[in-house]
């Protein structure tokens, strides 16, 4: 069996606006694949094309073996889809929502009777079974929405910013659940602009202004940027920032509490650089190198894009 998602040169315009431009990637079975990018980068548009609810303007994509443009209904039968809005019926109870979606996905009466309590139990929603969904907290709504989207046990699950507006603890639990789902062979594609979430994905695709900038595991993506990061303590944060910002090897300087976070490109030692630049100014009280993260890689990519392809 081939990869569950194969995307080749996918594009989408809305009038003159290019939302997605020539995007290609493959997603392997059982993988958690993240589409990462700022708001309006084209993540949701890409996802909607893959779900068969938006026709591509160019290129093609196959999802579980079906062409999204020619066979959207077969695609829909084989996917689960959950959006940041948790498309629940807020005036139905938890159990009624689940029954409804089970029916929509064609589960028979007997199957529904069996599956619904099982799934409620597994998600820890049994006690809240009779609660009106609109009165649930964000975290519980998210859990219910996920159960609704997976009640038909799809081989492929699309999550469009699934953790927007959900507290950090619930987000962690949610990701633990996503990994459980993936471990039994379900493929998951998730869009996010939370960088900490991006690091929980097996592989990432960075999308910026509709184009794919990079693709790989979080470690690969960070490594390719050749970034080094340090935390600098200095008596005058504002003037230190001004001094560092103009240095060509500096990718980013950002305030970090009462300290500075300095990222350098091309493998340049950030501590040495900080000392060299700041000795003429406020000086360096203390500096310590830390491990770069996905956010650093993403910022570096956006900066580089602004420098080279900034005309767009």
């Amino acid at each position, binding site marked *: 069996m081939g990869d569950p998602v194969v995307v080749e040169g996918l594009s989408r315009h809305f009038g003159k606006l290019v939302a997605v431009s020539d995007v290609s990637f493959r997603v392997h079975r059982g993988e958690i694949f993240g589409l990462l990018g700022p708001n309006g980068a084209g993540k949701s548009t890409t996802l909607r094309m893959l*779900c068969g609810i938006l026709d591509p303007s160019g290129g093609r994509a196959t999802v579980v073996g079906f062409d999204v443009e020619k066979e959207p209904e077969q695609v829909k039968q084989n996917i689960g889809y959950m959006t940041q809005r948790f*498309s629940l019926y807020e005036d139905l109870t938890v159990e009624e929502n689940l029954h409804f979606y089970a029916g929509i996905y064609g589960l028979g009466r007997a199957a529904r009777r069996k599956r619904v309590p099982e799934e409620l139990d597994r998600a820890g929603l049994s006690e809240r079974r009779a609660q009106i969904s609109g009165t649930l907290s964000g975290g519980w709504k998210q859990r219910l929405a996920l159960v609704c989207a997976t009640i038909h046990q799809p081989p492929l699950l699309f999550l469009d910013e699934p953790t927007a507006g959900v507290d950090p603890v619930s987000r962690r639990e949610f990701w633990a659940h996503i990994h459980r789902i993936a471990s039994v062979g379900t493929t998951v594609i998730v869009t996010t602009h939370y960088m900490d979430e991006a690091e929980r994905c097996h592989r990432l695709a960075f999308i910026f202004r509709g184009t794919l900038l990079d693709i790989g595991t979080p470690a690969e993506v960070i490594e390719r940027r050749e970034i080094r990061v340090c935390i600098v303590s200095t008596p005058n944060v504002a003037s230190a920032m001004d001094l560092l910002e103009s240095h060509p090897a500096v990718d980013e300087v950002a305030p970090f509490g009462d300290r500075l976070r300095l990222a350098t490109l091309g493998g340049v030692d950030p501590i040495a650089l900080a000392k060299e630049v700041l000795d003429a100014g406020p000086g360096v009280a203390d500096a310590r190198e830390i491990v770069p993260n996905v956010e650093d890689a993403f910022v570096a990519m956006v900066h580089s894009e602004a420098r080279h392809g900034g005309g767009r």
Partner: protein
Amino acid sequence: MNRMLSIAWKEMIQARRDRLTMGMMFGIPIIQLLLFGYAINTDVRNISTVVYDQDHSAESRGFVRRMEATGFYAVVGHVDSYEQIGVAMRSREAMVALVVPPRFGAEVEAGRRSQLQLVVDGSDPQVVASATNTALSLASARSSDLSVERLQRLGQPVAMASQLIAMEPATWYNPDLRTAVFIVPGLVGVILTMTLVMFTAMAIARERERGTLEQLIVSPIRSMELTVGKIVPYIGVGYLQMTLILLVGSWVFDVPIVGSVGLLYLLSVFFIAASLAVGLFFSTLAKTQQQAMQMSFFFLLPNILLSGFMFPWEAMPAPARWLSTILPLTHYLRVIRGIVLKGASFAELGAELVWLAGLTLILIVVVSMRFQKKLD
């Protein structure tokens, strides 16, 4: 002052950006003007009339000609029995029938009094009085002409006390001319139009507003399953409303149901389906529930004014009548009044049913063409 002007300025910008509101601001006054101007017309003309002429004399044909010359009656056909008058009235071919007795011409010729009969459909009380009065004055005018003629010809006057041609008015169906009997069945149609169109128009707009429509679109459900599933519960609602209005109408306003209740319930499904299809059509146009509601109210107006619910359909000018034929309510009013007031049969309502079924079919085709399982 500045604060107030800021609010006014913002309000104007928002009104201008909302194209629907803008259209309604200027569209509604014009459309209302036209609708009311056309609909409110109480001088009824061209009432469809059948003639049951048992005489076939020059005198009877002359009387019919003079009736038509008033512009008030339009003779649409001839019948051979009272039974056929009933059929013509129940199928709304005619609202008035003139009955000429045998030997009418000969009797009048001989100077003997003879009686014509004018049968009027009482289900629309607004038409009855003028239809009857015009006929009465025609009869008396012809009587005096005949008296003068006779005097000149024979030199002998007719007894002046009685006129030669008497006119006996008869009102069928709702002989007491009670308004409630006319209004209540019509109200069933109006209330069903109002509620069913609005319910369905808002039902899909609500899903769109809350984001659940996207979740449905991404599921394997078919357009047909979604649209039919959406309207089925409201068919039940429609029947409940209808039952309620008819029961209250019968208890409180003493409106009898002359015809078959079973037939009424059977045929009402055509109208309920048509109204729901109109609502679904609006729901494909409206982005928000508010827009859906505005559209429904907008639709209600011509229904009330042009369908014949309030003003006699016969009195409206041709353009208003053409427009009204595409409104499901126009046809349903004839069905429900026909059954409730006149005991009309399935066959007598055939034309209206063809219209209702046709309108429903066209709307459903349009709706399923417009409702694509795509986001744009």
